[in-house]
């Protein structure tokens, strides 16, 4: 049986992971089709329908400017998707480069790079993110960059650990004996074999990035109104906490479901990609 089929079979064995994967696909579809499925324009103000509770016209109610909550949540899913993927992309790139160099060359290079990782880990992440945002203008691009730049450390450690063991293997010696350059050795021979923990970390990373983005937008340091993001809708939820529970409940539920699905997928991906667990349950 092919490797991919083994992994696919192991992944699909877990019912929760299937549900997680379906929800993830559903959310991606929703955000891609937002202009077509959102019942209203997410930024159209309707002063006659301010803070109206959920009913047949506005399924999830309206906010303090009469904007349709469901439409804002649907459009907000685009923000989460973009931030999640771009931020994690940045983090993975930095993490792979630093981890690969540290693990491949070892010695002093490794010591210095790993000290740098330790230093980055010593900052409470949220503090570091806020500090950087304080000197830049808050926007979706700032957020993607800042989350990426502050969350690559785990990936670097994982890649380094993989490289440390892989570089001792025979196929690396063989390639080296054939005169393959270090750069090619790292990128073509070792890296492809070191990627499976990175996939897992990336899936969890998307979940984490979505959580951080919503927190930052909630604090007014992320996506700026009138553009909807789940975090900044919750800000109006807080401002109207005494009168409009729906503004607090639904956007948060959207965050919870999204993050939960990515976490479920990540968890089963981890189990499926871990060869030590293979065969254990294949009675």
């Amino acid at each position: 049986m092919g490797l991919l089929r083994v992994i696919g079979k192991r992944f699909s064995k877990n019912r929760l992971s299937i549900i997680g994967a379906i929800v993830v696909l559903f959310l991606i579809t929703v955000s891609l089709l937002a202009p077509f499925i959102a019942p209203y324009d997410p930024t159209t103000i309707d002063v006659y329908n301010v803070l109206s509770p959920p009913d047949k016209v506005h399924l999830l109610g309206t906010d303090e400017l009469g904007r349709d909550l469901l439409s804002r949540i649907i459009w907000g899913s685009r923000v989460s998707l973009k931030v999640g993927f771009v931020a994690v992309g940045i983090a993975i790139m930095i993490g792979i480069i630093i981890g690969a160099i540290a693990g491949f060359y070892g010695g002093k290079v490794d010591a210095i790079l790993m000290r740098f990782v330790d230093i980055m880990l010593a900052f409470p992440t949220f503090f570091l993110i806020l500090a950087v945002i304080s000197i830049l203008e808050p926007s979706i691009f700032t957020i993607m960059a800042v989350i990426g730049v502050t969350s690559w450390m785990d990936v670097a450690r994982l890649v380094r650990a993989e490289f440390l063991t892989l570089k001792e293997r025979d196929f690396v010696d063989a390639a080296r004996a054939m005169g393959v350059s270090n750069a090619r050795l790292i990128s073509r021979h070792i890296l492809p074999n070191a990627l499976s923990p990175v996939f897992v970390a990336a899936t969890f990373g998307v979940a984490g990035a979505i959580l951080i983005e919503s927190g930052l937008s909630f604090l007014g340091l992320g996506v700026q109104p009138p553009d909807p993001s789940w975090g900044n809708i919750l800000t109006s939820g807080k401002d109207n906490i005494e009168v409009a529970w729906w503004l607090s409940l639904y956007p948060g539920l959207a965050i919870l479901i999204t993050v939960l699905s990515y976490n479920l997928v990540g968890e089963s991906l981890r189990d499926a990609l871990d060869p030590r667990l293979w065969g254990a349950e294949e009675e």
Partner: protein
Amino acid sequence: MLPYITKRLLIMVPLLFGITLITFTVIHLAPGNPVEVQTEMSLKVSAQAKENLKKLYGLDKPLHVQYVDWLKRLLKFDFGKSFVDGRKVIDKIVERIPITLTINIFSLMLIFIVAIPVGILSATKQYSLFDKLSTIFVFIGFSTPTFWLALLLMILFGVNMGLLPISGIQSIDVSEMGPFDRLMDWLRHLILPVGVSAFGGIAGLSRYSRSSMLEVIRQDYIKTAKAKGLPESVIVFRHAFRNALMPIITILGLSVPGLIGGGVIFETIFAIPGMGQLFYSSTMARDYPTIMGILVIGAILTLSGNLIADISYAMVDPRVRVRK
């Protein structure tokens, strides 16, 4: 034990140095400089006044000299003065630390009291209904935005039921209360913030102690204990739990940055005058001296947390001390 602690302390020195370097770099990436930020409100500030301000912050000197100067003052915990109110940054931070620490200590206690029994129970009764329910709770705990949880609890207990206060750390009429009522008032204000900040940690630690416990249960000495016919409770608490506890201790130290950093959000929501809220307001005001100060202090607190974790780990596990 002493050589081990000394070695751990020495490792911290280059880390602290790196932390200051990164903090300094981050803040100096700022387009414009503190003088521009301070004077952009009033365009009439004369060139002479700007020059004076630059001198005051030492901005006329080359960057590496500025860094060394800043480092020297840092050793005396002199972070300069806040742009916002001209008070010393260190005073502003120090007066905020007690409340943040109090909440963190309470929530760590809550995390340990709830999570460890849950973890042990799900491990000893693996695949039981309790284990499945707690696994679901763990996943939800990992995925819930804490500020949303805070909002929901505020609506439920504060707005709908009117049971708990939803902001600040004391009531307006606190001055008219006796000492006991005052304490109760304070505790009532802390229930929601502590609960919210502990939520994610409970999920994480119960998962962690579950897997730690599962690992231990498979060991040979547990089989031996079972073969000897020891009662289940003795095996779980005497033999297994003690060994499972060791990796759990390290989590204590590692959870410090998350707790401190998370404070930014829930202190802001609950209007608690702690370090997180100060950091948030400094960010909004671009109060760079305060931002730098809190970054450095936050990192020092994190390192101290790691240090405490390492030392307590070495205390319970002698092998750590001898290993190089």
